[in-house]
C-alpha cells in the first residue's frame, strides 16, 4: 500500500470513504473545512452523497435520518458546531442508530478562537445532550491513527448501533503526515433489519424512535443502553502505555498534547528523570485499566491538556486517591512548549518528594 502525505482533515475524510461511509452531511466551520470540501469532491466519485446542510442542527438530523435508513454516514464540525449537535446526538443514541461524528476542536468558550484546543473533552465524553448516554470517543494523536480509527469507527458504530466520535483538534486536522490506508478490521455485523427501507409489504413497519412516554419502558430502554456501555467499557477501551514500566511520574495526555509530552519524556529521561505516559486513545471509555496496572514505583500522575483541566477529572477518578494528581494545561489555542512540560514534571516530583 502506498504512503501518501495527507492533511489530517482530508485523511479523515478519505478514511471515512475507505471505511464504507457513503453519506456526509455537514456545515462549514474552521478548522475542519477540508473535511466537507474533500467530501464534496470525492464522495460523488465513490457513489455516495455529499450535502451541505443549512446548519449543524440540520446536519446532525440528516445524519439521524440517513442512519435510520441504514446508511453509513458521517458528519463533522468543530466546537460550537458540536454544541449545536448535542440534541441530535442524544436522539441518535436514544434511537440506537450508528453514525460517526468528527469534532476538530478549537479554543473556546463561545466563538473563542480557531487554534487547536482540547477544551471539548467534557463536551465529547459527557455529552451536553440530555439523558444518560455515552459514545465511544477516539482521540488520535497522529494522522495514521486518525485514519485507522475513523475507518474502524464505522464498524464499531454499526456493531453497537451507537455513534462514535473522532475527537481531533486544529493541529490534527491541519497538519500533514504520511499515511497508509490499511485494510479495516471487520466485525461480524448483523444485517440492519431494523432500518427504515420500506416494508415492501413484507414485514411490520420499522420505527426509529427515542420516545418512551411510559417511565417503566424508558427505564428499561436505559438499562439496555447501559448494558451496551458496559460492553463498550469492557471491549473498546484503548490506550497506549509509553515508558510507564519504571516511571515515577506518569503523564496522562491524549491527541496533540500527548505528542509534546512524548518529546518531553525523552528529554526528561535524558536527564535521568523517569517519566512515562498513559495515552488514552479512547477518551470514553476512559482507560481505567491502564492506571490499575501501574507499578508501585509511581509517585505522581499529571494530566497534560490543551485546556484548563477537563480530563484531569477522569484521571482523579481513575487514580482513586492512590497517587497525587497534577495538572498542566494551556488554553485558547496556545500549545505548551516541551520545556514547560519538563518543568512541570520536575516541580511535581519535588512537591511529592
Amino acid at each position, binding site marked *: 500500500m502506498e504512503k501518501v502525505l495527507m492533511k489530517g482533515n482530508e485523511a479523515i475524510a478519505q478514511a471515512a470513504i475507505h471505511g464504507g461511509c457513503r453519506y456526509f452531511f455537514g456545515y462549514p466551520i474552521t478548522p475542519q473545512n477540508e473535511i466537507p470540501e474533500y467530501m464534496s469532491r470525492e464522495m460523488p466519485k465513490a457513489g455516495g452523497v455529499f450535502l451541505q446542510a443549512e446548519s449543524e442542527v440540520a446536519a446532525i438530523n*440528516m445524519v*439521524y*435520518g440517513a442512519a435510520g435508513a441504514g446508511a453509513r454516514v458521517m458528519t463533522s464540525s468543530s466546537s460550537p458546531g458540536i454544541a449545536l449537535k448535542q440534541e441530535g446526538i442524544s436522539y441518535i443514541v436514544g434511537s440506537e442508530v450508528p453514525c460517526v461524528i468528527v469534532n476538530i476542536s478549537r479554543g473556546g468558550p463561545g466563538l473563542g478562537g480557531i487554534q487547536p484546543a482540547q477544551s471539548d473533552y467534557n463536551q465529547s465524553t459527557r455529552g451536553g445532550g440530555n439523558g444518560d448516554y455515552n459514545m465511544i470517543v477516539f482521540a488520535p494523536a497522529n494522522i495514521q491513527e486518525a485514519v485507522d480509527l475513523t475507518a474502524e469507527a464505522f464498524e464499531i458504530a454499526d456493531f453497537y448501533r451507537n455513534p462514535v466520535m473522532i475527537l481531533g483538534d486544529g493541529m490534527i486536522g491541519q497538519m500533514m503526515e504520511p499515511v497508509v490506508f490499511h485494510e479495516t478490521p471487520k466485525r461480524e455485523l448483523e444485517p440492519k433489519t431494523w432500518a427504515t427501507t*420500506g416494508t415492501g409489504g413484507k414485514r411490520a*413497519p420499522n420505527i426509529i424512535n427515542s420516545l418512551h412516554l411510559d417511565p417503566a419502558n424508558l427505564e428499561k430502554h436505559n438499562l439496555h443502553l447501559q448494558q451496551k456501555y458496559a460492553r463498550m467499557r469492557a471491549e473498546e477501551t484503548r490506550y497506549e502505555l509509553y515508558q510507564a514500566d519504571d516511571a515515577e511520574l506518569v503523564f496522562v495526555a491524549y491527541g496533540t498534547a500527548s505528542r509534546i509530552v512524548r518529546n518531553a519524556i525523552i528529554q526528561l529521561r535524558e536527564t535521568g528523570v523517569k517519566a512515562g505516559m498513559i495515552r488514552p486513545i479512547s477518551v470514553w471509555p476512559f482507560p481505567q485499566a491502564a492506571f490499575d496496572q501501574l507499578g508501585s514505583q509511581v509517585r505522581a500522575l499529571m494530566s497534560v491538556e490543551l485546556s484548563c483541566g477537563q480530563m484531569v477529572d477522569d484521571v482523579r477518578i481513575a487514580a482513586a486517591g492512590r497517587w497525587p494528581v497534577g495538572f498542566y494545561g494551556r488554553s485558547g489555542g496556545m500549545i505548551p512548549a516541551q520545556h514547560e512540560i519538563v518543568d512541570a514534571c520536575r516541580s511535581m516530583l519535588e512537591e511529592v518528594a
Partner: protein
Amino acid sequence: MPTVFEPTKGLTGVEFHYCPGCTHGVIHRLVAEVLEEMEELGNSIGVAPVGCAVLAYKYFNCDMHEAAHGRAPAMATGVKRVLPDKMVFSYQGDGDLASIGTAEIVHAAGRGENITVIFVNNAIYGMTGGQMAPTTMVGQRTTTSPLGRDPRQVGYPLRISELLATIDGAAFVERVSVHNPANIRKAKKAIRNAFDCQKQRSGFSLVEVLSNCPTNWGMSPLESLDWVKEAMIPYYPLGNFRRPEMQESEHA
C-alpha cells in the same frame, strides 16, 4: 354490499390518542388512504414530528422515524438521500414546522428536496398545552398570550404556504382545510397531488392543512370547526400556491 367507506390499510388501526374531535385523525387517514391508493405503503418512510402527532409512528402502516422537534425535514432529507426511490414524507404541526423548524422547512424547499410535507396548522401548540404559535390568530388567547395575540408585540401570524411559494425548489404548495366533508375531499386531492409530485421527482411538495384544537382553543369540536371556517380561512386563504408547471415555465 359494496363498501363505500372503510378503514384504510394505510393505518395500523391502533386507536389515536388525540382528543375527541381533533382533526389530526382525519388528516392521518387522508395521508394513509393516498399512500394505500398509490400502492406506495410498502415503499414509504414517514417522519413524525414532536407535537400532538408525535405518536404518528404508531399509526401509519409504513416505516417511520420520530424526529427531533422541528427537524423532520432534515431527517426526511437524510432518509431521501439514502433512498431516492422511496416515498418520504414528514407530518408536522405549526409549532414544529413554522417556529423551531423554520430553517429546516425553508431549506428543504430551497433544495427542492423531493419529499412531501403534511403541515398541520392548528394555530397553537397543542401538545404542550396551548401556547401561542407563529400561526396563532390576532387576538387569539393562548396560555402564553393570555390577553390575546397582540401584533404590536409579536407580529402577525405567518402564512407559511405563501412564504414557501416564493422558493423555486417548492414544486407544489397548497393550503386546504378539513372542517367539512367537501373540504376533506379536496384536502385528499391535494395530498394526492403532492405525493404524485414526489413520484414524478418534481421536487419539494407541501400541503398545509388547517386543523383544529378543540382542547386548547377551549371549544367543543363542532365550534372549533366553525372557527376554522370563520376565523382561520379568511386569514389563511385556501388554494394552490405552486404547481410543478409554474416551476418549469420559470426556468424554461
